């Protein structure tokens, strides 16, 4: 099972690369959204899944990536690539500035501190003339969904390779040690502050690029959509649904949830959100350690697995 996962992932990635040539326009558009969301969930996984720090501030990096790209392209007529780099730099600076003070907080206190970041950023960008204040910015139009699709796929692949490296490296061992017991990790020589802040900065890079790609694709940016806290909630849900702290869990989790949501929205448009919430509640009850944990059990999985989870959680 374990040996099969990696070749299988390569095959899936290759197959996905050919989708724009065979799939319909709506399928490609769904694909772009799903791939970008998977990237967000995967980058949230770096600090959240491996380091155990639940952040609700990652959507800020998405917004910074969005605005960095948009400002560079509209106000300065810079090419898309340069815009992305500016967005990434903004996000990295933001991650370091935010991370240094608030990563001293632990557990729920960290999560609470990150909650306010979105609102603060939205207020700032609503009052920046260079960012179009609260009206927003309109980017040059590029009718090339296939390109955006391949960009999003490439980004997800790079992000997942990074997480694969983390899972097998000294760096990742430090993060997991921090997640399991930060005091014990410190006494064993792990520089927790450096590790946590760098994990947040690393996550901010991929998150910002995803934001930049989405901005150019949707051609419109405003404060409410760039600094959308529900986007952050989706990152958390998708990552936790798939399996936090695993390499492929967040990707699979977000693909599955994107598909579920799409089907629900098509069938019963108004009640979709309600049913989607129901699906997530069921998932958390029956498989609190995510899809990856279910898959790891392989064929041995049976109803007993789900019953045990319910017992363990005293439901």
């Amino acid at each position, binding site marked *: 099972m374990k040996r099969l996962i990696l070749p299988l992932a390569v095959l899936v990635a290759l197959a996905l690369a050919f989708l724009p040539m065979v799939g319909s326009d709506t399928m490609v558009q769904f694909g772009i959204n799903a791939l970008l969301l998977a990237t967000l969930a995967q980058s949230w996984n770096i600090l959240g899944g491996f380091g155990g720090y639940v952040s609700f501030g990652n959507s800020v990096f998405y917004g910074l990536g969005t605005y960095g790209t948009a400002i560079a392209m509209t106000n300065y007529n810079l090419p898309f690539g340069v815009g992305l780099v500016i967005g990434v730099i903004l996000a990295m600076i933001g991650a370091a500035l935010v991370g240094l003070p608030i990563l001293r907080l632990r557990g729920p206190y960290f999560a609470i501190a990150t909650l306010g970041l979105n609102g603060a950023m939205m207020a700032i960008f609503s009052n920046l003339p260079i960012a179009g204040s609260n009206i927003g910015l309109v980017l040059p139009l590029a009718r090339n969904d296939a390109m955006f699709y391949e960009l999003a796929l490439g980004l997800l692949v790079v992000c997942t390779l990074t997480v694969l490296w983390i899972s*097998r*490296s*000294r760096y990742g*061992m*430090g993060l*997991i*040690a921090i*997640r*399991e*017991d930060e*005091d*014990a*990790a*410190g*006494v*064993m*020589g*792990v*520089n*927790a502050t450096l590790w946590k802040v760098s994990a947040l900065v690393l996550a901010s890079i991929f998150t910002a690029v995803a934001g930049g790609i989405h901005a150019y694709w949707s051609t419109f940016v405003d404060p409410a959509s760039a600094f959308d806290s529900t986007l952050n909630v989706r990152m958390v849900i998708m990552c936790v649904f798939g399996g936090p*702290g695993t390499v492929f869990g967040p990707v699979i989790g977000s693909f599955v949830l994107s598909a579920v949501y799409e089907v629900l929205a098509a069938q019963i448009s108004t009640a979709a959100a309600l049913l989607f919430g129901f699906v997530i509640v069921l998932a958390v009850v029956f498989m609190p350690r995510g899809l990856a944990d279910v898959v790891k059990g392989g064929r041995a999985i049976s109803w007993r697995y789900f019953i045990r989870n319910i017992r363990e959680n005293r439901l």
Partner: protein
Amino acid sequence: MTAAPQTTPRTVIETRGLTKRFQGLVSVNNVSFQIAEGETLGVIGPNGAGKTTLVNMISGTLTPSEGQVVFEGQVINDVPAFRRAHLGIARTFQVMKPFHGMTVLENVAVGALFGRGAERSMAAAKEKAREWLEFTGLGRRIDANAEALGGPDRKRLEFAKALSMQPRLLLLDEVMAGLNPVEVDEVVDLIKKIRSQGMALLVIEHVVKAIRSLSDRVMVLHHGEKIADGDPTRVLEDPRVIEAYLGKRRT
């Protein structure tokens, strides 16, 4: 008899008037001691005597209110815990803290990756971890999940984690608590094996028999103060020590 050349062993750790206050409560009061290379200091005292607080100040999880912690001639009061680990201070925890979600081997590899030896490659760190697990007698459980281990094996894991950091000073905080007499003997043997590696050892323990057989010197803490320090047999027969532990003898 082999006549070893007489050199005074180097002092590894020294505290000078170490004091820790928690608001009004004085947990450790003006404690000074030193441990030389290859020496084992046993620390005993009733519950709440300040033993663990002392260890916390040496390992860096607490900062002293007064006094100095001197490691190999350098005052390390302001050095954070992770850097003390790099210098060569390792400890075990009274409430054991294995990393769940990691195998036994990976748990120990963390020490090899981040301790004084600081291996950069995973393969080398795992190799070292394997050696230390053999050393502590846990070689057969290498691939088990850390949370699957039972009491005595958890202690072995705790030892292996600390040892893989290649410490110069090892602080053992009540490693025998909760063990039966047979297991205590096993741990005593293990500590004797560790002693022969030449590092400085500080052993906090309640099991007096074990302390007597392990220690070169015994220090007694009572209400945060040092009330005795010296030869184990003499200290353990000191009336003041007996009184601290058992109360006044009625005559």
